[in-house]
């Protein structure tokens, strides 16, 4: 079970979407950004999703502060649509926190869930093969 914590704006919508896409393979819950990022840092959650509306970095601010820049990835900004290949590469490289703007929820969350599930499937296959 992949544990995802959602913070920031429109958390209800993101949780609904992520749960619907991930089904029984994911567990999604919401938390205040400080709590959510701490859960990931302590291993109580696997991934952090944060949405903001303003483009000033609020979506990932606490995740950057708690997890560090190298664990965070901005999946979309105002005027910059999410790119599936970049999201796949970010997940594969071990990024744990993903920020995006609320106007890109419908496109970004499916890309993130798909990439995370594929990443874990591949990791599982490698373990079985070894």
């Amino acid at each position, binding site marked *: 079970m992949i544990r995802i914590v959602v913070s*920031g*704006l*429109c*958390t*209800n*919508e993101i949780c609904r979407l992520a749960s619907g896409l991930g089904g029984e393979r994911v567990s999604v819950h*919401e938390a*205040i*950004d*400080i709590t959510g990022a701490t859960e990931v840092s302590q291993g109580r959650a696997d991934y952090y999703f944060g949405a*903001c*509306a*303003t*483009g*000033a*970095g*609020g979506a990932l*601010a*606490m995740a*950057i*502060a*708690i997890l560090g820049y190298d664990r965070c990835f901005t999946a979309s*900004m*105002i*005027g910059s649509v999410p790119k599936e290949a970049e999201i796949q590469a970010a997940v594969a490289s071990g990024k744990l926190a993903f920020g995006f703007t*609320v*106007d890109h*929820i*419908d496109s970004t969350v499916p890309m993130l869930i798909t990439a995370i599930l594929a990443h874990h499937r591949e990791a599982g296959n490698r373990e079985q093969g070894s």
Partner: protein
Amino acid sequence: MSNVEQVFQARFELLLSSGLVSQSSISAALDTLRQVERKTGIDLDEGLGAPLATHLAMALKRLEQGEVLQPAPGVLWQELQGYPAQLELAKSLIAGLEQRLGMMIPPDEAGFVALHLARIALAVENRTEPANPSIPEDR
């Protein structure tokens, strides 16, 4: 220590330690948050005020550094037509910040602040999770 200083102390300390905000941007953000409380009569707690607090401190730090802030999307201004009181308050807050900091702040910043104020007003009205007025929860 005032209410907003206590409420957002841990948040600002974390942001400061990671270099995302500065002491002066925190100070200006706290002053703005106090004005929001005074002018709206709303006590800001973490759930209500965290996005605005984070946004203000980070945006002001970027302005201090001479960075260009992201322009607001057109849809933001359309949505804010339904929140004239919040837009007026945001404009006055930005004007106060310009005076305090001695610098011009892009007009779009008033739109972003108004968006947060509208979200706070909606949350207080509904007494539920703060929603983003520009993106309805039940699209």
